[in-house]
């Protein structure tokens, strides 16, 4: 009897784990085949959804018969992701995307084994060129740019002069977003206090909610946050009537009455040139950045939210300043952000 119990459990476990790791095969015709491995789900309203939406947009443009997308979700564990990446490469996909900064060291091992396959890794600027690897593209989002614009808006909209920012772990585009937003607030409204809390998790919705609550208690009337765990915080903001700024994907649907705007990533800006390279047979492992200037970053205003015209105008003015280089951002080796204003007569 005891043994049977074990068998039942073993079957349950196996049934759950196995399907995750089996990419689907296909033949017939010669469509462009792309596979993406991601840490959360394609509908997370954040990081993973942003790349999936971009691939779907490209598919719509090229036609489903010419462009095939396969993906593996929820591979937050690096070892599982590495297995999936290797499988996709072995299956002969034209482009294999490792959508998560944590996948880097796995990719460094796998890419040289499949020299004819093109890989893309984000978000990062490292293409392993120094290690002699030439088939890895890199992509990143300069999320501090849109964050700065949103920070300026928040600085104008706040009445309590307290603004809360929730981050996951102090690294990558999350850190850029948090720092950019804080800099934007300080630029517009030096009197406002920005409360920052990195909750040390990309997935703990409950913790993000509790962090939001702590900020609201401190008097925050505007919140923002980055990564997949923010829906918990959005809900707390909604209950308290505080405003919310989104990033990575358009988050207005979560709370139409309080979302002012979202910074939306459009990865097609990086993916289209990569795909063109591959089709031309010229894989070169470039690094791409999404910026406001190249249209990879967009501030999407929530249509259901009545935004003051002065704030909207100011946001557009700041966006123009970033696009034409009057305001630029520099990140030092330690990842610290500084805002650089060009020596023109632009007012502060």
């Amino acid at each position, binding site marked *: *009897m*005891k043994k*049977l*119990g*074990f068998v*039942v*459990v*073993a079957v*349950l*476990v196996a049934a*759950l*784990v196995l399907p995750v790791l089996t990419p689907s095969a296909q033949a017939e015709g010669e469509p462009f085949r792309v596979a993406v491995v991601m840490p*959360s*789900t394609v*509908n*997370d*309203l954040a990081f993973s*959804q942003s790349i999936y939406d971009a691939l779907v947009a490209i598919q719509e443009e090229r036609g489903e018969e010419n462009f095939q997308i396969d993906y593996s*979700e*929820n591979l937050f564990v690096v070892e599982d992701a590495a297995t999936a990446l290797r499988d996709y490469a072995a299956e002969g996909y034209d482009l294999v995307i490792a959508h998560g900064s944590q996948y880097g060291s796995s990719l460094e091992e796998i890419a040289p084994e499949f020299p004819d396959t093109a890989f893309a890794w984000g978000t990062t600027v490292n293409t392993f060129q120094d290690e002699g690897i030439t088939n890895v593209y890199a992509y990143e989002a300069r999320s501090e740019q849109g964050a700065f614009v949103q920070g300026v808006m928040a600085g104008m909209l706040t009445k309590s002069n307290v603004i*809360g920012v929730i981050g996951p772990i*102090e690294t990558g585009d999350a850190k850029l977003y948090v720092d950019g937003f804080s800099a934007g607030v300080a630029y517009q409204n030096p009197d406002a206090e920005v*409360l*920052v*809390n*990195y*909750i*040390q*998790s990309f*997935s*703990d*919705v*409950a*913790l993000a*909610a*509790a*962090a939001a*609550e*702590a*900020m609201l*208690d*401190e008097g925050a009337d505007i919140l923002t946050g980055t990564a*997949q*765990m923010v*829906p*918990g915080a*959005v*809900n707390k903001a*909604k209950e308290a009537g505080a405003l919310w700024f989104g990033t990575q994907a358009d988050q207005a*649907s*979560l*709370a139409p009455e309080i979302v002012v705007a979202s910074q939306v990533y459009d990865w097609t800006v990086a993916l289209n040139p990569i795909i063109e390279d591959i089709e031309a047979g010229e894989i070169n492992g470039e690094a791409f950045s999404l910026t406001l200037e190249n249209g990879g970053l967009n501030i999407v205003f929530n249509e259901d939210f009545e935004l003051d015209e002065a704030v909207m105008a100011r946001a557009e003015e700041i966006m123009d300043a970033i696009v034409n280089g009057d305001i630029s951002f520099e990140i030092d080796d330690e990842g610290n952000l500084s805002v650089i204003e060009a020596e023109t007569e632009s007012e502060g």
Partner: protein
Amino acid sequence: MIDVIKALLTVSALASGIRLATPYLYAAIGETYGQRSGVLNLGVEGVMLMGAFTSFWAVNRFTPEGATTYEPTALLIGVLVALAVGFVMGLATAFINVTLQAEQGISGIGIYLFGLGMSDLLFQRLFQGVETVNGFPKIYIPGLSDIPVVGELLFRQNLLVYIAFALVPITWFVMNKTTLGLKIRAVGQNPEAADTMGISVVKVRYFTVTLGSMLAAVAGASLSIAEHNVYFYNMTAGMGFIAVALVYFGSWRARGVMFGALLFSLVTAIQLRASTLGIGIPDEYLRMTPYLLTIIALVFASQRIDQPAALTKPFERGE
């Protein structure tokens, strides 16, 4: 220093701590029933996730499109659906642990993985993306909620918070003052003796494990349709395992479990305020404090002498 403590120990921090304790209370009290009868159920986390998802789905499904406020029928259905799911998973757990006599530490992990995978699969199939629902509103108890400090702490919570705390004296009463409680304790202490006295060990264990599982499912629902009103992959993030630890912490007594849950969640609430206010301790260390505290408390405070003697031991009737 005193300023820092004052800033951290605000009324709202304490109120937040009480709310955060709710899912732990449901799950850990449910687990207490099972463990008192000798069954360790490590699958709590998986049941919580299933409860969180299914109740969220039900509330989403039965709230009229475009509703701006909560819908009592939808919320009731949400809780009932969670209870039903907990019931089914509880029966399955009892079948595996009691009838098949599986190794309880291992089978629980199987149930956890099942809940984790299944809740996400259903979410992917039934929802297009992250959504929110109108969950249980806060109920201001007339009169009492106006009392300074205490009113805000205790009498401005949602219904599921009140029920969670009501379970503490109810559980004490059931365990200590009823025949059922006597049977549960007898089965957990000495199943052979209980058996010779005509108590059906199997029946009692099926009952406690299923009840515990139903409460675990409500613990999940208290997150997705009362506290956060959103469902998200793996949204319990380890709470079910903490709940199992809290049962040991509370020496298998409802009151002890409650203090453990409150301590853990208060430290979590205060810790979040500390890192928001930036008191100079890195976030990484602050995030550890509730867990560190739980481990330390488990090592030093737990009186293992109260542990049910037959815990994790399957019962086989003598030939």
